[in-house]
């Protein structure tokens, strides 16, 4: 039976996080420590492989070094094999949940936004991850870049409905 009070089409936007947390069981504050540790390892790799270097990004976009292509390429291959194995053998998470994957839908934003990010990437020499590692490495000026990136994200959220997507 349909209720007469049924709400009409809900216009509220559903929250779609692009890097979502799909864990069902709730986590205590302390369990966040493991993400801190993974982050620390990640930050060390960024600096030690000189991925945070503006020069390495310049070499990449001038096709003068294989380094960054090797880093990204081998990361993708390892990631791909891992995802394949997790799916194939239905490997569960530590708390026994099924791992969730999210298909991405094509949107024009991936083109416009992708190009815009690319322009910024070559200028700043950093994608969002290295930004944090550069600040940790003592490049104080990059704090401004990070704040501006946050402002950029906010501005996108503000104008989202008016942009082609």
């Amino acid at each position, binding site marked *: 039976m349909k209720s007469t009070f049924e709400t009409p089409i809900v216009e509220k936007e559903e929250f779609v996080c692009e890097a979502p947390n799909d864990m069902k069981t709730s986590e205590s504050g302390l369990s966040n420590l493991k993400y801190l540790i993974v982050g620390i390892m990640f930050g060390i790799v960024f600096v030690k492989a000189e991925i*945070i270097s503006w020069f390495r990004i310049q070499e990449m976009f001038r096709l003068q070094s294989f380094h960054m292509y090797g880093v990204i390429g081998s990361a993708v291959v390892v990631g791909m094999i891992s995802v394949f194995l997790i799916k194939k053998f239905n490997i569960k998470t530590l708390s026994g949940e099924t791992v969730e994957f999210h298909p991405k839908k*094509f949107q024009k934003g991936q083109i416009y936004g992708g190009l815009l990010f690319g322009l910024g990437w070559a200028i700043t020499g950093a994608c969002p991850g290295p930004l944090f590692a550069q600040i940790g490495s003592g490049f104080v000026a990059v704090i401004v870049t990070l704040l501006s990136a946050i402002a950029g994200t906010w501005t996108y959220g503000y104008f989202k409905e008016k942009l082609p997507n």
Partner: protein
Amino acid sequence: MELLEFIKQPWPWYVAGPLIGLTVPTLLLIGNKSFGISSSLRHICAACMPADIPFFKYNWRKEIWNLVFVLGVLIGGFIATNFLANPNTIVINPQTIKDLSALGIKDFNGLMPSDIFATENIFSLKGLIFFVIGGFMVGFGTRWAGGCTSGHAIMGISNLQVPSVIATCCFMVGGFASTHLLLPLIFKLF
């Protein structure tokens, strides 16, 4: 001690790349989390200044792991730079040095040229372009694209997502255009 000396050398791509790739299954298996870094910027907006914008009205507390993760990246950068730093000067392709010298870069000693990234440059035209405008493009662009190098190029392609391949190609096209068309114009200003 020899191990430490070994670690202090710059790590080759075939060590760093697979380690970065392993972040994908690590996050999935320790907590069912999809890898992506630019989302942290959105969570900061949602936590600090949602301003009633629908895009920032969600339970960011559930995504706090992502903020903890990027805090870790920052700490990792501190540790690597202060305790594991390479004692030698960075090795850069001579052709890159030649090209960048022609643009006006003089400092090739560190990971970042002080000609651009010196703290004194924050309140200058250089700072406006390289930090403020560049950073804005990174933040606006990644969210519009729905991810950055980690979320699209690594996590997305690992999961065989065509939109992520498209996005990654656009990142690269933008980067090439910026390097070869924009940077020569920008450096004419200084």
